[in-house]
């Protein structure tokens, strides 16, 4: 083993010298001195490299892990909670949407009749004797007009029936007041069937430009009421 090879091996790993190196060092005083010198340097190197480790590092590592584990467990739980909450909310949502499609009001006549019942007290004492011109001004918004008088008009007010803005006319019938709702044509899926209860009846008439609902006393001749209005109803172009 030449000197360079000897030095390379000692330099590369001074603490683990193989037998060949040890024998060479035994045989040669200068090689022995070199090995000693390098092992001395190695001890210094070890001391320098074994820098102080923060005292509580180990416990902080374990703390971090347990916090992380706790957090991920929480997250797992949260996910479960959220999923549960979402399903509950979904179920409630379905419940509500079914409720809002209140079976009572799938029939438009029913809805109008309810409106009439709700406003009964209000209309009972209301007589504005609305002139035809005012009614026509309001009907213009629906593209319609009355060519002739339809008799006494107690009131002509806009009202809101769910999403539909209707003109609510109260006129005289043979058996009492007749409520007429003039509405823009709607494509909402509704039941337009004629209905009746012990006091009133409701009938819808789907005309060219508007939909009209009549709510009249039960004994009222609906056919007559209908033609009474519809014969005088014309469309503005």
């Amino acid at each position, binding site marked *: 083993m030449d000197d360079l090879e000897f030095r390379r091996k000692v330099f*590369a790993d001074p603490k683990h010298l193989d037998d060949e190196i040890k024998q060479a060092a035994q045989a040669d005083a200068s090689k022995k001195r070199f090995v000693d010198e390098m092992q001395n340097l190695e001890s210094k190197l070890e001391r320098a490299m074994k820098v102080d480790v923060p005292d509580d590092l180990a416990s902080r590592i374990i703390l971090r892990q347990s916090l992380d584990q706790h957090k991920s467990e929480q997250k797992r739980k949260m996910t479960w909670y959220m999923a549960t909450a979402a399903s509950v909310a979904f179920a409630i949502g379905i419940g509500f949407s079914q409720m809002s499609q209140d079976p009572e009001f799938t029939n438009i006549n029913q809805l109008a009749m309810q409106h009439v019942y709700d406003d009964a007290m209000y209309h009972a004492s209301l007589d504005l004797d609305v002139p035809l011109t005012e009614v026509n001004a309001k009907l213009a918004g629906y593209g319609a007009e009355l060519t002739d008088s339809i008799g006494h008009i107690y009131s002509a007010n806009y009202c809101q029936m769910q999403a539909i803005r209707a003109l609510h006319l109260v006129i005289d019938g043979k058996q009492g007041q007749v409520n007429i709702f003039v509405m823009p044509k709607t494509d909402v899926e509704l039941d337009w069937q004629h209905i009746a209860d012990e006091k009133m009846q409701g009938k819808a008439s789907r005309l060219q430009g508007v939909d009209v609902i009549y709510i009249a006393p039960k004994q009222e001749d609906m056919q007559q009421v209908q033609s009474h209005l519809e014969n005088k109803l014309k469309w503005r172009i």
Partner: protein
Amino acid sequence: MKLFSRNKSDKVSVLSDMREKQRQYEALVSAYHKDLYRYAYWLIQDQHIAEDVVQETFLRAWKSLDSLVDAKAAKSWLITILRRENARRFERKQFDMSEYDEPNILDKSTDIEDDTEQYWLNRQINKLPLEYREPLVLQVVAGFSGDEIAGLLDLNKNTVMTRLFRARNMLKEALDNNPTLERSANG
């Protein structure tokens, strides 16, 4: 409903598995955190970042503890995780900073300033290029053999031995050229 309900003995065994994993993990931390910290310290040259990286390393080790089959390979497994964590940090850093900041390790270490020679040696080690410094740390601090270092750094053994030789050679030359320290060493 076997699928959804565990019987009592299952629960107990799951708990004891968890406890066993925790015990294994704590043993790993206590056995290797010092070597890992020192390796990170010399690799990164910043105490605080070194500590963060060690924390990240152990956290990752915890998450994939099941993949550690051979307990004897634990240290090199951890070193590999740490190297990867450090590489990841460096990728992030390149987005964060436009210029590479100087190692600030020396100003923060107060304990080694007392010992002039050690302080000086510390500086010399830090001056070594990373490719020489890293195998040296793995050998001196972590006690890995040339073969093991070759495996960790994905180099052949001869290259590792050459780098170890050059690292010590540079330190020896620096030491020989420093008259102050030579005197103290001889005296």
